[in-house]
């Protein structure tokens, strides 16, 4: 990594070097008996040559399509899986080798699973966690009060987990993961299936924990609004390789130049021709509504808007920037990135 001249103010908590992990997949043929006696395996590289460092107090968004290797990386960071190549250091510990020591430092939430006991009240699970992690009574009470306040645990504290709605369960799960003041919090799709209110609550909570306790957060999600609201830094992984690592702002600036203007009004052909003559502009018309798409590197929105303003008969205008979903999608297909290796903006 190139970081000469750059002063790292914060302590590095996670360091990943040349990380790699293979999976063996059994090849099945049509012939049943042959399959049984001679098994053939195919090696699939789930994660290949991944390098990154994460400093204390960062909130990092880790995104990629299904099957890109996100969960595999997280599993190696938490110590569930052993890396095949390369090394992982979390707080100076190799999580694969010292799982118990590592577990004291981290909190994990997998959105699709739960670590709460299904049949007993939330309160009891939390109490159990207190003993499992040897949390001092005072810290336990303080944390419990703090989390109940922010997450609103109070109203369903006494209910068994199976009676909770998804939103309540998720809030309880997060409280449970972070009860022992971990330095690092891994969140794997924490907002899956949640409505907007709970989502906001959860996001607010993550932000607050990050601010108050300087907890480092690593977040994988498919919901780009999570990333937009929370993360300062994003890492994009595709086919086991990191294809982007940098700030969200830079990502927008590098890839988000396709913008569009929507306008309603009365149009004449001469006027539309004039707009079409601008570089990189394409116009589609649908009755009285037009859609102008353009590349913001070649022409600025104010030029087009100025032209539109001269036309007195318009009634509604919208100017959109490219959605983050679109940018990420573009990143996956962008060949340049692959060929030139990793883009690092840090």
């Amino acid at each position, binding site marked *: 990594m190139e970081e000469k001249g750059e002063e790292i103010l914060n302590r590095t908590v996670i360091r990943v070097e040349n990380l790699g992990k293979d999976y063996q997949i059994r090849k*099945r043929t049509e012939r049943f008996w042959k399959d049984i006696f001679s098994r053939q395996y195919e090696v699939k590289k789930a994660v290949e040559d991944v390098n990154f460092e994460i400093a204390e107090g960062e909130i990092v968004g880790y995104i*990629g*399509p*299904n*099957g890109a290797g996100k*969960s595999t990386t997280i599993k190696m960071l938490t110590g569930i899986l052993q890396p095949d190549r390369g090394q992982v250091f979390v707080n100076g510990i190799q999580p694969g080798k010292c799982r118990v020591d590592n577990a004291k430092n981290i909190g994990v939430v997998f959105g*699709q699973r739960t670590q709460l006991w299904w049949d007993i009240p939330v309160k009891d699970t939390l109490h159990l966690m207190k003993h499992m992690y040897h949390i001092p009574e005072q810290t336990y009470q303080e944390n419990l009060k703090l989390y109940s306040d922010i997450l609103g645990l109070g109203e369903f504290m006494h209910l068994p987990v199976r009676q909770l*709605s*998804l*939103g*309540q369960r998720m809030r309880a799960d997060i409280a449970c993961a972070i009860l022992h003041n971990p330095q690092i919090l891994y969140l794997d*799709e924490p907002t*899956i*299936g*949640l*409505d*907007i*209110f*709970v*989502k*906001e609550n959860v996001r607010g909570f993550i932000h607050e924990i990050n601010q108050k306790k300087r907890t480092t957060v690593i977040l994988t999600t*498919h919901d*780009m*609004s999570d990333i937009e609201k929370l993360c300062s830094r994003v890492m994009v992984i595709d086919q086991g390789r990191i294809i982007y690592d940098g700030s969200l702002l830079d990502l927008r600036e590098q890839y988000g130049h396709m913008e569009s203007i929507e306008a309603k009004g009365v149009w004449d052909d001469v006027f539309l021709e004039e707009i079409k003559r601008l570089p990189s502009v394409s116009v589609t018309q649908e009755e009285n509504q037009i859609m102008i798409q353009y590349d*913001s590197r070649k022409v*600025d*929105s*104010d030029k087009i*808007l*100025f032209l*539109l*303003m001269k036309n007195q008969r*318009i*009634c*509604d*205008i*919208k*100017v*959109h*920037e490219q959605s983050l*979903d679109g940018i*990420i*999608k573009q990143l*996956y297909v962008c060949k340049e990135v692959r060929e030139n290796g990793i883009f690092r903006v840090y």
Partner: protein
Amino acid sequence: MVIANHINKAFLEKQVLRDVSFHIKEGERVGIIGVNGSGKTTLMQILMGVLLADSGYVRVAGEKSWERQGKRKTRIGFVSPRQSNLHPDRTVEDSVNLCKKMYPKAWKVSESDLESIDYVKECLKIKDIWKEIRSSLSLGERMRAEFLYAVMMNPHLLIMDEPTTGMDYEMRTREYECLDYFRKCHKDMPVTVLLVTHSIQEMEWLCDRVIAIHHGQIIFDGALEYLQQRYLSLGKICFEIEEGALHFHDMPINKYEMDGKRVQIIFDKRYVSANIILQQLMEEAVIKKIRVLDMDMETMIRNLYQENQSPSSKP
């Protein structure tokens, strides 16, 4: 297609659905929204015949949904992350073949049907997971297989309960493309779709009607456009000032925020249109990087729920 009149349902003392009524015509695509725990899933389960309503009148395709389940199963497709149609210890292929054998009568398909199924397989990249055992699939992968399973039997009604959980953006768009394609293939009788989701974007892609449920009651039933008009009246303009100074006080706007060069203006679309403000801005200063946006959809949903806080729900 679906008739529901005055449905009530309670679990012990907890009233989950209160007097819910709606009619859905054949071929309609209806989105259902509501916060977690508002009763959406219960409603779907009543429609499918898994649960019985305490009172009320429910008919799906003219029949009682809780009777003659075997026959009905092939006529209703169902996708949900919580319940799976696929066999847990078998490959996707086996589950699909088993389904064909279980319902030989329903599995009378024409060439064009096969073609559309192939299209779905291709589009959702089901080949990659075709020979995988269900329990080894990730959620996103499983949901793709579930979708195929649901549409395979050419259902009349498709109930999708958050069908894109765990999927990435690309796959999400593809799933809706598939659905569109599927409906085009059966023009004479396009499938009626009930979509439960938290994502307004997906609703925009698919639905022409929205039903919002809050505390077990229907608080909105109508077109998505109407919902937008009524609850999404605020717009937002962002830009950077290059030269000149602006005087916001005499502008017809609600509020503004300035952060160095970047400025954000919020205005009410019911009273003033964006181009009037823009014109005024451009006369007074040189501005760049202009964006004119709607307030986000989440604000719209929030407004909707806040307006309909029912007093009976409060403890």
